[in-house]
């Protein structure tokens, strides 16, 4: 659909804004509505919009399927690592209090990291599903 001038121009403006909004939802989830799940979906939406407008092949060059596959596993890995970090610091699995000296800062850091893991897995899963369904 690249030859549609309106779609082309609008997508060019919208894609960075969608990504920025996704990052806002991701890292502002502690204070407002949002979090990893929503941010991941919104972030994936920007890539899917790119794929719809400029074609699947160009999207494959931007994010290679094997890279995005490892990213989806890395998200779960980050989540579990935060849990294991709690065990190593002498607490229970996924206890963020022990991550840092101040329990509340520890909670904050733990939540940011696990939300990051959630966001990565969700975003890459959505892009992979789009790859699997969309035909060039």
């Amino acid at each position: 659909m690249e030859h549609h001038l309106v779609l082309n121009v609008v997508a060019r403006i919208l894609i960075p804004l969608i990504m920025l909004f996704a990052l806002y939802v991701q890292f502002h989830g502690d204070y407002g509505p949002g979090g990893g799940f929503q941010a991941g979906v919104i972030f994936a939406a920007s890539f899917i919009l790119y794929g719809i407008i400029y074609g699947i092949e160009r999207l494959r060059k931007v994010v290679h399927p094997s890279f995005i596959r490892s990213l989806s596993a890395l998200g779960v890995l980050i989540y579990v690592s935060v849990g294991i970090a709690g065990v190593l610091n002498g607490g229970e699995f996924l206890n963020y209090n022990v991550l840092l000296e101040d329990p509340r800062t520890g909670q904050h850091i733990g939540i940011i990291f696990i939300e990051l893991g959630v966001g990565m897995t969700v975003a890459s899963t959505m892009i992979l599903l789009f790859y699997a369904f969309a035909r060039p």
Partner: protein
Amino acid sequence: MIVLYINVIILCLLVITAIAINQQDNLFATTMLTGIFSLLSASLFVCLDAVDVAFTEAAVGAGIALILFLGALSLIKYKEKIKNKISFLGFFIVILTGSLLIYGLQDIPAFASPENPVQTYLADRYIVASEKEIGIPNLVTSVLASYRGYDTLGEVTVIFTACIGVLMLLGRSRGDYKGIVSREKS
């Protein structure tokens, strides 16, 4: 009171959309109506003060799921195959399941009742203590990510597993990707 009216209106619109989905035999229109259904449920969640759920419903139900449906539609025909035969077994199962669900509903507490077991000890505990224990203002995030961190880990694993499943069924093998790249280069 006005919220109640809005809720009733949205619920009526949901029922109308569901009937329209059922009547439609053009799959493209059905997909679009599903998106409208999701958007309506998202607004219903906003009315019920569940902003985080509404956000998810709008992003996933009305956004990504619609795109994935459209992607699947591009692989098949747009017209639904009409079956004129009425299946009495299916009708019986639907009636049975429906009456079982209604029977099950007898036991649940009334809508927004203060005696609801959820409201009596756990919600209070979270509302009072989460600001002190977790230190972040959004209660939903602290319940989801910290108190119920193990559940959320399960959810992420489910998404990851679903991804692996879809890729095994529909994804192309590694060689196909290479084939596409090399075809482009040549």
